[in-house]
């Protein structure tokens, strides 16, 4: 039974009713590198489709302790043009993008998560082994050195 996949049902709200509190939210939020350069205090997120601006503000403030000044959201439509080997249309999933402006004058720059790291001894030795093997293979491919680079296809 897909417990997480089906839509969660929340109690109906009517005027004067209690505030809805969700105890174990299953909403995800991930930081993305903005495609278009954003101002320094703006962070771009991809959030679950059901989240509202208020939800996102509370989520960041309560769970991550990040001061939030403003949130703007939009839903990005995923294209349905590509076709698979059966000529059926393959849909790219839709997702909601949130632009969050941090409070208290904070700034954010998306970091480089794949910096160049120096190779450790294992990979270096493997590379050396690979290089020596390739050189040996090339030597075998070459013909008799006394023929001066002429291929063996020619007679004599």
């Amino acid at each position, binding site marked *: 039974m897909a*417990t*997480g996949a089906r839509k969660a*049902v929340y*109690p*109906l709200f*009517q005027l004067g009713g209690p505030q809805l509190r969700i*105890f*174990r*939210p*299953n909403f*995800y*939020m*991930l*930081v*993305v*590198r903005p495609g278009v350069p954003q101002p320094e205090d703006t*962070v771009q997120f*991809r959030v679950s489709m059901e989240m509202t601006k208020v939800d996102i503000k509370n989520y*960041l403030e309560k*769970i*991550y*302790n*990040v*001061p939030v000044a403003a949130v703007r959201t939009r839903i990005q439509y995923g294209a349905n043009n590509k076709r698979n080997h059966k000529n059926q249309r393959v849909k790219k999933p839709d997702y909601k993008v949130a632009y969050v402006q*941090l409070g208290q*004058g*904070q*700034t*954010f*720059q998306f*970091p*480089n*998560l*794949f*910096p*160049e*790291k120096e190779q450790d001894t294992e990979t270096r030795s493997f590379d050396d082994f690979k290089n020596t093997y390739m050189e040996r293979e090339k030597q075998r491919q070459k013909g008799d050195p006394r023929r001066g680079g002429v291929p063996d296809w020619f007679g004599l």
Partner: protein
Amino acid sequence: MAAAGAMAALCRRLTAALRVSGARLGSTAAGFPGLMLNLFHKNLAKVEPFHQLKFLHTTLSRKGLEEFFDDPRNWGEKNVKSGDAWNIKQLRGKSSEDLHKLWYVLLKEKNMLLTLEQESKRQLRPMPSPERLEKVEKSMKNIDLVVREREIALRLLQTGHEKPVPGEWRNDFLGRTYWYTYKEWPIPWYLNKKYKKRKFYYLPHVNHFIRLRLEKSLRRRVRRQNLEKTRQKVLERKFPHLAVKSQSQ
């Protein structure tokens, strides 16, 4: 637990020393003062997040946005080691408070891994150890199951009902019987136009199709049982020494 406590004490002394000297927390070696230890592994060390240094303001301070990213030492690595997923049996032994905290730890870990996945797709690089995502999802599902079990037990004791929302068996217009859960509406059912359009009964001409459906399901069941029997016979022919000896008098 002791190691975590010692590490916490060391970090506290470090931040205290920095506060006194007024040095900038620019180096990554100081780590993220606000970051909790990686509680993904089985030992649940209760480490409180440190208080923010209010008078120290750096332009790059993310105050918690750093939790969307892994430990900086792991950036650029090909493989990141991680422990196993949480088992249901292990989770059943934890208190509700512990499960609540663990849920949020796993949620933050999931966010971090999803960020890493998206960034690796963007940079056209392989994501280091993608199996961590599956482990986190499995752990979260297990926590959900355990909490659900406890809720059902409590509800059974208090009210005698198993399900949180009442319902009943109903027929749809195709003759199928299904469990209908009651929905909350602000208006009664006889004023609900959308609900009145739904038909929870079927007309007599549907009986023929019910019969066909029944025959199809019976045929599928018999086919499945025959397949099982033939598979069993094939195995017995191949491995006669492993056949189950039938009880003979």
